[in-house]
């Protein structure tokens, strides 16, 4: 028995949870490769033109798994309780895949807490579908939850250490994990920041519960959980970072409005909005990040040591 997991969308949020759950149940998993040009092209072919970039990539990943495993894991998420819903794309991914690829076996669980569909219930149900006993699944689920928690804490610890360093420019990348860690969307951005002598700080490594609480300061009526965590995390680490990159995939629905909110309400730190689409040119991206970081260095007095001499430019730095 082999369960395929597309390396896109919610994978980056639930990596440990899924991996531990299946390994505790003695089920092999197959995670699709890192996003590459082929996956992207397949994804574009199998999706509606106007879908957002991450969902196109998702379709590519699903396609790459077809025929290589018995089940493909596609969760459906609607809300995590009242006032904590997610983008409707997550409501529909399951049905979109089903309608696009026809007969493939999909393993799914449904999180719709307002209507009584909890994560635990969904996981137990998955265990049943896979032919495991109730006790085994519940044990695996508990272990998986624990693993996820430990991992999140570890990530937060590492990040806190990075944020305390004073010798490097710290750029907060505000974006969904499926953008930040994607090889085609976020990876080049991270690479450039590192190359230019900065340190990227990731929103998803910041404690989620605290971020959620903080987000209330910026907006009371915002109801997308993932976006609440994003804006909350900006507020939380505002004093420790030097710049914010809002990395948005085109045309993300929630982000289109929430970016506007961030731009208008948080004016303390320099902020730049980078929009990625499938026709992304790398040169343009590099120039934008470079000039953004230069501006921060020029403006702040903290980083006098990082300021470049004119001669650097002359030497073709």
């Amino acid at each position: 028995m082999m369960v395929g997991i597309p390396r896109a969308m919610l994978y980056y949020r639930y990596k440990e949870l899924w991996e531990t759950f299946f390994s505790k149940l003695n089920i092999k998993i197959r995670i699709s490769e890192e996003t590459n040009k082929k996956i992207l092209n397949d994804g574009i072919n199998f999706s509606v033109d106007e879908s957002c970039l991450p969902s196109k990539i998702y379709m590519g990943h699903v396609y790459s798994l077809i025929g290589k495993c018995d089940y493909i894991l596609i969760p459906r998420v609607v809300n995590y309780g009242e006032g904590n819903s997610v983008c409707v794309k997550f409501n529909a991914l399951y049905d979109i895949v089903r309608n696009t690829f026809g007969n493939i076996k999909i393993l799914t669980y449904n999180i719709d807490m307002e209507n009584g569909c909890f994560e635990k219930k969904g996981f137990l149900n998955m265990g049943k579908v896979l032919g495991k006993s109730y006790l085994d699944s519940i044990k695996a689920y508990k272990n998986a939850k624990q693993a996820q928690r430990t991992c999140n804490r570890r990530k937060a610890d590492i990040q806190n250490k990075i944020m305390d360093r004073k010798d490097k420019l710290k750029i907060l990348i505000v974006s969904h994990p499926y953008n930040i860690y994607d090889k085609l969307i976020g990876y080049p951005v991270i690479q450039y920041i590192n190359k230019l002598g900065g340190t990227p700080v990731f929103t998803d490594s910041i404690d989620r519960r605290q971020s959620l609480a903080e987000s209330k300061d910026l907006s009371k009526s915002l109801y997308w959980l993932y976006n609440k965590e994003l804006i909350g995390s900006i507020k939380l680490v505002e004093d420790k970072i030097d710049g914010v990159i809002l990395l948005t995939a085109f045309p993300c629905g929630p982000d289109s409005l929430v970016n506007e909110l961030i731009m208008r309400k948080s004016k303390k730190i320099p902020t730049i909005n980078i929009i990625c689409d499938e026709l992304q040119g790398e040169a343009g991206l590099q120039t934008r990040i470079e000039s953004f970081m230069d501006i921060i260095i020029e403006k702040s007095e903290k980083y006098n040591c990082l300021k470049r001499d004119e001669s650097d430019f002359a030497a073709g730095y």
Partner: protein
Amino acid sequence: MNRILQQVISFPHMGNYHVPITNLLNHLFKNHIVLPAPPITKRTLELGSRYSPEFVCVPFKYNLGNYIEALENGANVLIQAGGGCRFGYYAEIQELILRDLGYDFRFIKLFGNKLNYYKLYRLSRTLGSDVSYPQFLYYALLTKKMIEKIDVIEEYIRENIGFETQENSFEHLQEEFLNELIKVNTIKSLNKTYKKYSGLLQSLPADKPGDCLKVGIVGELYTLMEPYSNYFIEKELAKNKIQVSRFITVSFILFEKPRLKKRILKETGGYLEFEIGADGTDSVAKSTMLAKKGYDGIIHIKPFGCTPEVNAMPMLQNIGKDYKIRYFISVLIPRHPRPA
């Protein structure tokens, strides 16, 4: 208190629904002025687009344009509703944008799961309404009935206007009907008006062949219902002697859908196992229905980047294939104002 100031209440447009809303607000706020936003023109969209975020959906821009024009006309209380997709977050961002533009106004947001008649009543009291709760309920009922009647009349017009023998006869009658509705005070007089005009409509000469082309329209609610935003697609179709049907109306969304959630999911005929958010589910359900009824074509309208409707597209494509619908088009309402 700042109540001393005269309040001018305004709201954005959608189709002809400004009539029942104006009627309701007139009844609730006798001391205030109710001023619907000026009719949508090219300028509305241009204004809206200028101040909107880059890739927000089109209804946001229309609404924003409406607000700006209403504020220019002196409105100081604006009303916005909310929905399941991005629509629910319109209000906050629009308020931010308008405040940054330097306008002074009060913004009323009508949404949330726990919205009920009593809460609406309390809200109207804080805005300076002096009707009692029973009266409030009566007017709410009147508005509900009025919306239903408008939808029934418009459905008939939509299906027959293409075959009118006298030019513009249907439109004139519809205009008269709406003008009379604004002044309606009781449910009884509403029923009377409705009977009068539905009789008049049915007596209008029309030569409709039995085998005319039938086209159904589904899609995102705002671009469906606001003719300006869909470039008067219904009118254009009717001009070509096509019977046009549309089942997504305000009375469907507000009054029927909440009751029938499970049934709508069943009506999708297996294309959907779960709801796909906002009105995407309806689009699939209604398309299945249209396909089963043997319609010749289905037109799917959506603004650029509307996630629920984009979600619905793979299913709609499958429906088109499975039922062998002759014409299946998806109309995309672009992000930018069209060139003149």
